[in-house]
């Protein structure tokens, strides 16, 4: 298996506070890595450093062997780094379909971008619709996003990432705030994505049952440091993880 994504001594400081502290880690193709840790451990910040939302203070991020530290977030995305956000970040005034179409169009430029009608690109619409079917949003595809329920907005957030068709999927608590009957749709989908062995999936998640069923590997962040890395069962049982969660067993969280 090859390393799709590597971070080496990745560090960011905000004033005197070190939010991510020299994290060195590699993510292999065909693997789903869960990133766990208490609130404020630096999980989302670690994601932001990888996807380029904030610049690193030091250290390197490599995508398929190439350093991408100097690239903008949009360039990183075009190279195959896809990211979904913990706080839903969509285009509220546009329709559900338009949101997904935009994500597809971003990595597959259309002909006559300036003078053709957006709706005339049927291949784009078909593909967007099939992505929406996968998250069961095809029935609301013409609604403006601002009118969607919270759960559906979360699903659309996931759909946008899938529509990007990236090499590296980064999910940040994809099922947060979803109802019990909505979450499985997203989780099944992530399981499906796992079957594709040229990709790697990074998943920030709190729910232990989710991690147990999906993760091939767990890394634990605590105060910005990587404190454990390995097989899910082993990592969860280790002392350092119990410690990180302030004496509470991970399985109770």
């Amino acid at each position, binding site marked *: 298996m090859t390393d799709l994504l590597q971070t080496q001594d990745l560090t960011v400081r905000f004033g005197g506070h070190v939010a991510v502290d020299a994290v060195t880690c590699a993510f292999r193709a065909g693997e789903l890595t869960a990133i766990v840790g208490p609130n404020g451990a630096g999980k989302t910040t670690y994601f932001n450093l990888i*996807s380029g*939302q904030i610049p690193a203070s030091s250290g390197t991020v490599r995508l398929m062997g190439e350093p991408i530290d100097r690239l*903008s*977030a*949009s*360039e990183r*995305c*075009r190279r195959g780094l896809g*990211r979904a*956000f913990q706080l839903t*970040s*969509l*285009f*509220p*005034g*546009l329709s559900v379909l*338009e949101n997904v*179409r*935009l*994500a597809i*169009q*971003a*990595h597959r430029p*259309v002909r*006559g*971008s*300036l*003078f*053709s*009608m*957006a*709706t005339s*690109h049927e291949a*784009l619409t078909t593909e967007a619709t099939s992505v929406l079917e996968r998250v069961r949003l095809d029935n609301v595809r013409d609604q403006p996003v601002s009118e969607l329920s919270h759960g559906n907005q979360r699903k659309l957030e996931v759909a*946008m990432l899938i529509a*990007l068709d990236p090499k590296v999927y980064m999910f940040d608590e994809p099922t947060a705030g979803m109802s019990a009957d909505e979450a499985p749709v997203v989780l099944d989908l992530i399981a499906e994505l796992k079957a594709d062995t040229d990709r790697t999936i990074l998943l920030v998640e709190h729910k232990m049952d989710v991690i147990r069923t999906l993760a091939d590997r767990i890394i634990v962040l605590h105060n910005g440091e990587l404190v454990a890395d390995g097989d899910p069962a082993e990592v969860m049982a280790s002392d350092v993880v119990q410690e990180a969660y302030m004496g509470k067993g991970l399985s109770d969280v």
Partner: protein
Amino acid sequence: MLMRLISGDRPRSRILTLVLLAIFLGLLFAPFLFPGVRALETAARISIFILLAASYDLLLGYTGVVSFAHTMFFGMGAYGVGLASQHMGRGFGPLILGSLAAAVLAAALAFIIALFSLRVRAIFFAMITLAVASAVAVLVSQLSSITGGEDGFTFQIPRALGPANRMGEVMGVNITGKILNYYVVFFISLALFFVLLRIVNSPFGTVLKAIRENDFRAEAIGYRVVRYRTIATCISAAMAALAGSLFALWLRYVGPETTLSFEIMLDLLLMVVIGGMGTIWGAAIGATVMVLAQTYLQDLMGSAADATMAIPMLSRLLDPDRWLLWLGVLFILSVYFFPSGIVGRLRGGR
């Protein structure tokens, strides 16, 4: 066919459709429906300002970029045609060359401004455009040997478009070159308006809307936001320049007062806001309302003042000299009652 022409962007409201149709037909048959020099003058002005407001809406409403340099580009088009006609002699060649050169130059200048300022915050772009526009306005009034200074200059247009060219009578109206000129202005404005409508409904336009809604996410899914904003700025500038060329062609005169003044910039802002930002159609309505108000509000108030002679306070308030006051009141009321513009209001009561 019609749907393709308007790029599938339906007005989406019956009243709106009727209003737009009335504006379109009114302008199309203006020389026959409203005889008289003043009416034709107003109709031409409406046609041009619809295009100008639509091009400004591409920037303000679709890209969320605030620019104060739009009249500068408008002026560039006007001076382009004026100077070309003055130095190359009257003819269609100088007209076409002048407007195209000005449009290219406007796009190039917009590109430079965008390059320097769009990377930073939007407010910075607004400040830069304000500074550049003021500088250009001063420059134009100072370089009087070239531009005619504050007075501007008149120039000659092809005889075919002048009032002396008489071509007979249709439906009791003398068809002169002036009317031909009107139709040149009208149809070019209309065509460019449809081009703008197509651009905002294209894949490119959808990206602009996405950037306006959430530039952070647009960047995160792989769009070079600055590049899109820059292209939109350039297109908008070129369109404004073409509108300026038409205006100069119509007036056979260019001067800072008619093309570069800050008042026009404010009018433009009002047109887009009153009509409804981010809806190209709104520009058509906003421009029509504004130009009509500017032209006929004084008349209307004059007759209203006469009618209320008996009531002392009211007739003083309705004095035609106070028309700007009432225009201001109308503007405040319209923003208060239609925050999303007339089009936004008609489309969904939002």
